[in-house]
């Protein structure tokens, strides 16, 4: 399968996603810049972390108008895997591809550290190699990661098993229902504040995030070939 990593002005975890997929997993992956209008030929698309458009106005609020976004939406609508981490998650919510919004952390400060998570839903194309309720630890690095949605949306998310990751011990940002990552109803779009791409090599301290990409490559290949 062929994967696109979108580069917005101000993206800065693009290299992290790219290297995790290319060097660590051996996947076929390209950088695609924000001015492109087509993702033809790609089987999955990844939105990286960073500060697209400087986070000016609101994190992800300007990126959703980028020229590439209609193509991203088309991928999502056609059931192909779409993944966003950190700023990528913020963009997916701003673009309406995922429910809810990310607010400023309760602490009002940026926070970078490794936090424990629970894999709540292991039935997605991104999490099938994890056990249900498995405890993992992933790095977070954000100032605007407090997940918010109205009660009806939260109920809906819980009922439909759309909560994929939850903060396990401490809630580092004030997210409602301790939500760290959610998918869309169809399950092909996943957004999460933690950075699995930063936890794919033992030398950097953890490999807990590796199975996000392994799951995608395993299941995505099936989708791509199917």
């Amino acid at each position: 399968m062929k994967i696109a990593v979108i580069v917005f002005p101000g993206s800065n975890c693009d290299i992290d996603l790219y290297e995790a997929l290319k060097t660590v997993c051996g996947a076929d992956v390209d950088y695609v810049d924000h001015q492109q209008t087509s993702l033809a030929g790609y089987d999955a698309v990844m939105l990286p972390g960073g500060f697209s458009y400087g986070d000016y106005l609101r994190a992800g609020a300007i990126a959703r108008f980028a020229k590439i976004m209609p193509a991203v939406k088309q991928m999502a609508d056609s059931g192909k895997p779409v993944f966003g981490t950190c700023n990528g998650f913020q963009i997916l919510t701003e673009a309406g591809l995922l429910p809810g919004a990310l607010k400023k952390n309760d602490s009002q400060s940026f926070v970078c550290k490794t936090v424990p998570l629970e894999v709540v839903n292991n039935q997605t194309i991104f999490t099938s190699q994890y056990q249900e309720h498995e405890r993992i630890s992933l790095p977070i690095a954000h100032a605007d990661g407090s997940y918010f949605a109205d009660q009806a949306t939260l109920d809906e998310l819980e009922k439909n098993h759309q909560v994929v990751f939850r903060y396990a011990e401490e809630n580092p940002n004030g997210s409602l229902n301790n939500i760290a990552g959610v998918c869309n109803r169809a399950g092909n779009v996943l957004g999460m504040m933690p950075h699995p791409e930063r936890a794919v090599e033992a030398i950097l301290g953890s490999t807990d995030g590796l199975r996000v990409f392994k799951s995608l490559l395993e299941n995505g290949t099936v989708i791509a070939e199917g």
Partner: protein
Amino acid sequence: MKQALTPEQIKEQKPYLDWSLSEREYNYIADKLLGRLPNFTETGLFSAMWSEHCSYKKSKPVLRLFPNKNDRVLQGPGEGAGVVDIDDGQAVVFKAESHNHPSTVEPYQGAATGVGGILRDIFSMGSRPIASLDSLHFGELDDPRMKMKVAGTVKGIGDYGNCMGIPTVAGETTFDSCYSGNLLVNAMSVGLMDQKDIQSGTAAGIGNAVMYVGAKTGRDGIHGATFASADFSDENATQRSAVQVGDPFMEKLLLEACLELIQKHPDWLVGIQDMGAAGIVSSSAEMASEGDAGMELDLDLVPQREPNMSAYEIMLSESQERMLLCVNKGHEDDVKKIFDFYGLEAVTIGRITEGHQYVLHHDGQVVCDIPVASLTDDVLEEASEERKPARITKAEQEDNWQPVITDAGATLEQLLQQATIADKSVFYEQYDSMVRTSTVVGPGSDAGVLRVRGTKKGLAMTTDGNGRFVYLNPKVGGKMALVEAAANIVASGALPLAITDCLNYGDPNDPEIFWELHQSVAGMAEACRVFDTPVISGNVSLYNENNGQAIHPTPMVGMVGLIKDLKHLVQMAPQEAGDLVYLLGQTGDDYAGSELQKMLTGDIAGMVADFDLAHVRAMMQTLLSLMEAGRVASAHDLAEGGLGVALAEMLFKTDLGMNLSLDLTRSQLFSETAGRFVVTVKKEDAAAFEAALGQDAALIGEVTNSHWLQVRLTDGAMNKSVAELERVWKEAIPCQLKSKE
């Protein structure tokens, strides 16, 4: 209306005195360099370029003491940053810069633009920045204003570096009342590059274009360089116009555009330089001087944020996120296309000319026509008076203070809560330390360690400066600063390569302060030679005073080391119960300037003892070769709070403890003798380890499973729960920040 001043009025009214240009310098410029009176714009340019910040006119004679070459140095001082060979055709690029004055006035923007400025220095060399470090010195945390300044500084560093996507991986933060009126904010950046891409800040080739790229020019930061070359006092407490405002998003775009140009189209580019202190004038004049060329600029073409800016304002603005390029004639549009993609300005504002004149046009008039060299090379060096301070002579004649400690455990607990020693995670968790996924060891250790992708290599990096020792004994303190940095690098399994520095001092017109500068640089230089770590870049920050009260002389050493193979990386956490614990180096009764003295007496005093640099170096080399042979399980260097604090720090974040028997007194547990390590070694490696280090290594006990620190001393014992020590260490700073006092 200063703008209306004619050359004659300038001579009469001497407005240049307010811009830190002396009458002697003005007369020299008029009589000897120009043979006429300089006009308003020219006088402004001279005052900025001849400031200490740009010209080093006072510190130059002292800076010549530093070694700055060895086999690995590819670029020494004089360019945007220094460059060192790390084999395989690769190089590491680094520099540190102070932003003390702006940060004191406006901590958030001061710190943010400090980070921004040093990053531009790194990528102006053609190198991608891979890591940032800082060295922060604040006043005591019991002052509510200081809490705000600390918060602003930390947020400024975080917001800029995080948005740029450059991990902040190491640094130091200390607290002392001497910094209350004048913070020290030193930022260091490290870049990685292929040697073939090394750039120079040069402008040459008649007819070639001078291109301005990046953000527009506004009225911010005018006279920042001269501002940084004067003291603070309550009378001029509000100097916000001299502080710049940062836009990290703009800088991220500028970084990507510049690197694309440098790496993909080296043939289009002659030279590139950051517009830092003294903005367009310093970058353009320095590039012309480097290329031995003339230059003519049309200031009406400079992209401007505000209407009606004078030539003087355009030239001296320190607006951020701007670079100056010299581009081969005919490639101007090609360069513009690259910057267009990133939405950035790229404008040809002038050309390289025959001869050596520096000519500026503005509003249809020639506003400056002077020799390039008069701005950059003809600066009058100033011989400075020096005098040994009486406090030092007095200390030499008196006996040093000796502590009286009855309960070593209680003292350790108290030391761990001193802000300088206590856990800093409340600060560094606001920095993204992992972005770019190469951080092997992040903040909170001896040194930050990054891997070099695609190789086995690693780079270790640290910043160190302890003004207390330098204040009490400048020469020995200077040596200690270098040794402390080297110890942090070696403790990570790395070979010290070279250093950058920020020399932070008070007003050099005070003979005692100049003596401190001279002596401490002499000490640093001596240590640099012994350790073969040349000074490849750096800056000088003088006039760090408030109401006549100078900071402790605080030279900051930023050092980078090379780990040949990351499988030899050593960390500070002991690995396994049963491993043996060794103390390396001799421990003396060294309490002058120690954290213990500060804590127990409220002040520092006494004479800091000299030590044998060559011996410490030899010990470190042996330790490093043992690490590279895989015979060291963990290592930590001893610094503030001495052995007691180092032992506790090693055990934090582990489940382990230690059972030790020391040939030391309760007091000596906290002595700060330089050049010592605690090392743990597997039992099977003990014989080889002891044979190599001989007298330098003393076996002091074992790593245990108990999570207790048990220490027998010659005059007592200490038995402390590590969990309890860790709790007080962690809670100290958050608790002080929250306290309402």
